């Protein structure tokens, strides 16, 4: 995955709560066996409405999505992350995220940023007032900055390090292959196998 240190770009406000992954990418798009081309399916049903915020040319080119709470609930489909990234988003900001979506995002280098609800709303209002507003998401400094506002966010050290280095989890785990082998030798004898 691509390393993430600091990103500055424009944002788009999504004033909806419980944006489930079925909305981010409807199931019909999940039939693909490749990892690309999902940007066309991003919010596919909502984008049919000309008034939907992503159809507003004012926000074209935005790379930071600022959503209502409980973004990415529901299905475990990582396709939701791929669709957001392939559409051009690098960061999603919300007050709460679905756990699986949040996990999937950090595996792919899409940064999920949790800010307090009132700060999310303040940022949405600021972006609506000035869609060209430059928003900086600083992972190194754990801060989101815009127009004189600076708001800190929490992320654990390990995930932050992995994102900043752009490291692949499998490679990291394989360094501990011996520990895995030792563990396997001590597993309980009644545990099932599929063969």
């Amino acid at each position, binding site marked *: 995955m691509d390393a993430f240190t600091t990103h500055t770009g424009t944002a788009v406000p999504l004033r909806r709560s419980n944006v489930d992954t079925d909305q981010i990418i409807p199931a019909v798009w999940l039939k693909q066996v490749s990892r690309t081309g999902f940007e066309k399916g991003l919010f596919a049903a909502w984008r049919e409405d000309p008034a939907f915020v992503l159809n507003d040319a004012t926000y074209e080119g935005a790379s930071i999505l600022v959503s209502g709470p409980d973004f990415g*609930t529901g299905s*475990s489909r990582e396709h939701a992350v791929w669709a957001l990234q392939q559409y051009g988003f690098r960061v999603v900001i919300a007050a709460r995220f679905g756990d699986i979506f949040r996990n999937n995002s950090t595996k792919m280098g899409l940064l999920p940023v949790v800010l307090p609800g009132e700060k999310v709303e303040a940022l949405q209002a600021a972006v609506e007032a000035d869609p060209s507003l430059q928003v900086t998401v600083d992972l190194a400094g754990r801060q989101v900055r815009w127009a004189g506002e600076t708001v800190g966010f929490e992320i654990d050290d390990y995930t932050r390090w992995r994102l900043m280095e752009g490291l692949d989890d499998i490679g990291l785990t394989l360094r501990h292959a011996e520990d*895995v082998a030792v563990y396997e030798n001590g597993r309980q004898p009644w545990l099932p196998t599929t063969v």
Partner: protein
Amino acid sequence: MGRTLAEKVWEQHVVRRADGEPDLLYIDLHLIHEVTSPQAFDGLRLAGREVRRPDLTIATEDHNVPTVVGPIADPVSKTQVETLRKNAAEFGVRLHPMGDAGQGVVHIIGPQFGLTQPGMTIVCGDSHTSTHGAFGGIAFGIGTSEVEHVLATQTLPAYRPRTMAIEVSGELPVGVTAKDLILAIIAKIGTGGGQGHIVEYRGEAIRKLSMEGRMTVCNMSIEAGARAGLIAPDETTFAYLKGRPHAPSGELWDQAVEYWKTLRTDDDAVFDKVVEIDASTLTPYVTWGTNPGQGLPLGGAVPAPESFEDPIERSAAERALEYMGLTAGTPLREIEVDTVFVGSCTNGRIEDLRSAAEILRGRKVATRTLIVPGSMLVKLQAEQEGLHEVFKAAGAEWRQAGCSMCLGMNPDTLQPGERSASTSNRNFEGRQGKGGRTHLVSPQVAAATAVTGRLTAPADL
């Protein structure tokens, strides 16, 4: 200080623990289906990696499969299923393809084969993996990157979620089911109420549930935002497992049971969060909105958005009523449906079919009704019990096993504007087909609704 069940199971599976890093957790069973695995197998091929433990991995075809006999008509779905077959063959993974006697919805077949056992860690690229927690293990959904990670290493790096107890006191009244209970729980704590937690369902009402009912409850943990849901194993669990193909036998069975009996939360253990609910006050529940937290007792009415104090909930309710085509104040019992769906990993097990059949016996359906067994083995058992004849005589459609109308990925979908009463788990916008409107219900309410054509409890018939 004592430990909770979730903590005990977690600790048993830690391969490696280091300061400032997530635990490396061993995975006892990896379930696979065609939708979330193709890109993971591609990743293995690109990196020249093998599946570390094909003997702890099992695959089935469920999301894309049509539930009428015959080949897959949609070429894209067909390619996805064929890709799974190719990958399973290449990497040596056991697969139950369409038409196979062991095929079915991924969360139905694991327990059915006895592969799901107490104290295990189980993952699948599917959020409803929480179902398997009903046996007293930690089971959770993962994304495709993590599927690849488990295939390659049989482990996952993860931080232990916080623990939450949902204490369900009292007894469920007659006609009130595990589905009603979990819908009531989600309505109470909200779709984000369990975020970051493993939920342990406890209390008298939980202990009295069958394994099928426990699976229904744990299945929908994710709809409350929880990472996983589990229930301490007991005699009900052991009786369900005994004699299943992959359950231990002989001396190993005795050893296993001895260990499984230790899998309970210690009396002095402390949960990070506790929620209490009295089962004896519950009545059948249905959802009125577009997330599973927007539910009410069937005796209620469509709520007015103004009745929500929280502005975010209010605007969500406004939007939901518009999408659902509902007017505030309408009694829920007056809502007419076009389709009834009984099935899915939530309610596609034999007990669910039995309870629907009991209501449909000697009656006729007034609307399109799909009865979809969760697996081919459930189908076989239902047919041995003659349930299929009951359904057919009532005018319902008796189908092959699959995910069917739970999600819009196969031919079973709603048309735009169509309304369903569905025993599945998600009432999201477009979940059952673009523009479709979903009311989540129990199998009993689904069957009663099929008879009248509007949302109905069995007691109303």
